[in-house]
């Protein structure tokens, strides 16, 4: 699961982000969801369009929690859960209606447990990250130190 500790090595695409501090005033008010990532920039989808923000010299504030990534985290969570048989039933029942059509209400009531409905109002953690820590190729940011290829 994505946590403040693992955020810099985890997937940033899809996370809600806000620019807390930037070298240029042009980026200071950017807030939205991360759309794509390159080695030195993040593209953020904002209500006024897609903005490309450089990582260097920028401080980002990411929001981690269930409420902000409902559509994203449901599929990932439901696939991880089938470890106990008691949870298997409601999970498959929740997955099926989503395949016929993306209706958020059905998915939330079907697969959604009490913890998820709680998480929508609480459990949102805001993590402030220096953009210089993210300066890496998106696919290789997960690796730490020496890679298995060497």
């Amino acid at each position, binding site marked *: *699961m*994505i946590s403040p500790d*693992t955020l810099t*090595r*985890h*997937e940033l*695409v*899809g996370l809600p982000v806000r620019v807390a501090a930037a070298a240029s005033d042009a980026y200071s008010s950017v807030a939205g969801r991360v*759309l*794509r990532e390159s080695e030195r920039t993040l593209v953020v989808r904002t209500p006024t369009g897609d903005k490309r923000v450089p990582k260097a010299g920028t401080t980002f504030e990411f929001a981690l929690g269930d409420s902000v990534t409902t*559509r*994203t*985290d*449901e*599929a*990932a969570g439901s*696939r*991880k859960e089938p470890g106990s048989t008691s949870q298997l039933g409601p999970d498959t029942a929740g997955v099926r209606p989503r*395949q016929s059509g*993306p209706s958020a209400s059905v998915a939330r009531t079907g697969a959604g447990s009490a913890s998820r409905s709680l998480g929508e109002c609480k459990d949102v953690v805001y993590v402030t990250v220096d953009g210089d820590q993210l300066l890496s190729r*998106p*696919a*290789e940011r*997960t*690796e730490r130190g020496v*890679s*298995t*290829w060497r």
Partner: protein
Amino acid sequence: MGIPEERIERLLSLAREAVVDGEFDRSREYVRLARRIAERNRCGLPRAFTRKTCDDCDVYLRPGVTGRFRTQPGHVVVRCLECGATDRYPF
């Protein structure tokens, strides 16, 4: 489950959202990134990932939108509606 596997799972659902939103090229970006993560970290791809993505053009295969899923005796035929590539797997 390590971070690479979690990233791949997240990217698959993000690719699905991109297709739902009609942005096929964005879903291709996510699928390609996930494939790259899998090969860099030697963790392989989940079966759901290989089934739901096009081998040729990397788009997420959503039945009726970007993919056509038909059953034949003993196997499933998946045709990508974007590039026309065909994939078959047994059932």
